């Protein structure tokens, strides 16, 4: 792994996405195991100023691809840009976040480079110089460790699985501009519209307290008391895929393998059995409290506190008690 680790950073709202800083942290720790450099790529239009952010968070060398045709994400455009950066950086591995960009860019880039990808990994290590990526599979019921025969392997890292480095503005690094010459007309996948789903209140990813409900809530109306508890604790409401698929809650509140990944201090799992596909989204929570009438529910195995009872009986009193304690 002589050429170091390349991180493909993601730009979100004009800044480096938080997940990319976590990936940089993982890359730095990985590279330091073998005394290697961390390189980073930032792709977009008007993104050159972000290079110093990446250096302050652990990059030794930043490659900037700053072209108008890359103002919006496209698979064709970003794969082509990363191909150019890869040629300049020749890394042994490429890391990126398991995000809107990483999910799409990672595997296609890997195949373009004659390699392969391990997606949604929790960690990367290099015992004896051999890259190992650890990822959940079977809906989180199992974990798999993969090594690679081709290079660079592309590894995407799950949100909140790795810690970013503390910002250090005194860190020094090199910045190289890469001219990828991306022609907008050659990009086949084009974004023609965008619909933002306005989230009321606190973003799930930022919430310190989440009150999540599952199949056991039974109806859209049943969530009212969960909303009250969230309000009493200054938190946000989340839901399982089953609750969203039933139309009880908007998809934007879905937590799990195919939804959001959250890491609050306190996570109430109400009427949630604890299927691994859901746990994949909330296993980063510091404290899980389960409220479920089924004492055998697997959720209790991941929970620090639990009440075995019908949520309809427990939650109103819990809302009241929390209001009093916080008053």
């Amino acid at each position, binding site marked *: 792994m002589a050429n170091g680790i390349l991180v493909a950073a993601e730009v979100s709202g004009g800044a480096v996405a938080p997940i990319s800083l976590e990936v940089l942290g993982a890359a730095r720790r990985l590279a330091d195991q073998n005394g290697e450099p961390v390189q980073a790529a930032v792709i977009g239009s008007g993104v050159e100023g972000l290079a110093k952010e990446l250096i302050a968070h652990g990059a030794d060398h930043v490659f900037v691809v700053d072209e108008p045709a890359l103002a919006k994400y496209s698979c064709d455009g970003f794969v082509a840009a990363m191909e150019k950066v890869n040629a300049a950086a020749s890394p042994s591995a490429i890391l990126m976040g398991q995000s809107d960009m990483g999910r799409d860019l990672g595997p296609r880039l890997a195949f373009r480079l004659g390699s392969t990808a391990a997606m949604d990994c929790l960690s990367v290590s290099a015992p004896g110089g051999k890259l190992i990526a650890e990822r959940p599979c079977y809906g989180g*019921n*199992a974990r798999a460790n993969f090594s690679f025969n081709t290079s660079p392997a592309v590894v995407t890292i799950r949100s909140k699985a790795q810690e970013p480095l503390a910002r250090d503005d005194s860190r020094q690094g090199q910045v190289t501009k890469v001219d990828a010459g991306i022609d907008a007309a050659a990009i086949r996948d084009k*974004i023609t519209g965008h619909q933002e789903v306005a989230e009321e209140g606190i973003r799930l990813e930022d919430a310190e307290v989440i009150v999540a409900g599952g199949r056991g809530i039974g109806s859209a109306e049943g969530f009212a008391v969960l909303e009250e508890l969230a309000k009493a604790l200054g938190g946000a409401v989340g839901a399982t895929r089953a609750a969203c698929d039933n139309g009880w809650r908007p998809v934007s509140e879905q937590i799990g393998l195919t939804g959001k990944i959250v890491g609050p201090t306190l996570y109430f799992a109400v009427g949630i059995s604890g299927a691994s596909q859901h746990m994949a989204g909330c296993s980063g929570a510091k404290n899980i*409290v389960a409220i479920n009438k089924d004492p055998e529910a697997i959720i209790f195995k991941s929970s620090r*506190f639990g009440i075995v009872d019908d949520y309809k009986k427990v939650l109103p009193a819990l809302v009241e008690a929390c209001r009093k304690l916080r008053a």
Partner: protein
Amino acid sequence: MPLHIIACVKQVPDPEAPASSFRVDEAAKKVIAAAGVAPVISQFDALAVEAALRIKDAAADTKVTVVSLGPEGARDVIKHSLAMGADEGVLLTDGAFEGDSYTTALALSKAIEKIGDYNLVLCGRQATDWDAGVVGYGIAELLGVASVSLAKAVTIQDGKVVVERVLMEGYDTVEAPLPALVTVSNELGEPRYPKLQQIMMAARKQVTVWGAGDIGFASSGVRANLERLFQPVSEVECEVVEGETPDEAAQKLAQRLRDQKII
């Protein structure tokens, strides 16, 4: 213009099987199939078939072919897709196909090239066994066609595929010229459930079976090695809070959370 859509489907262990029945053979690096639980079509792949059929509902001269790579038993997920309304099925079965995401994508891309004359390839966003999320994109790259991922809606308009692509916050509308490959996410909705009459009709349909030689598959070997497969252990000890009444339990819980400085 008649359309030809190819949907790739995989047979997986039923993810609804109780978590307590989940076992891993660490030495063999394999999941032990839960006794008495029949394998099913991967949920997102059923949605890929559903997305194809919604296009067919809107344009009747659309042909839908399903392809599955797996053991002989994977014929069942092809039959399921045919019963949903797909027109033709191809089963790729050969020991040579066993490998990793790369060998799977290679075999499927070779089969798709052999089927030929396709306008759109649809795949699930990931299979619910390995959750790899690689094969669809790999097929697109090997075929050299445009790809759009994580669709919650797929339509054909003016010879282009128009996809609503799910994002963390909201969605993008993305267009790509045909032929293209699209991966489908759960936000698409529910797949249709086959009716008895369709199941009986599907049972009589022929499924084409191809091995490595039929599709010109020659792999240079796997690109990823499974080094270890194991079940993670949870270290959490659950403190069950009890009370004479639900009210009392709730108050005690709130107090415990306060004692621990969690709230």
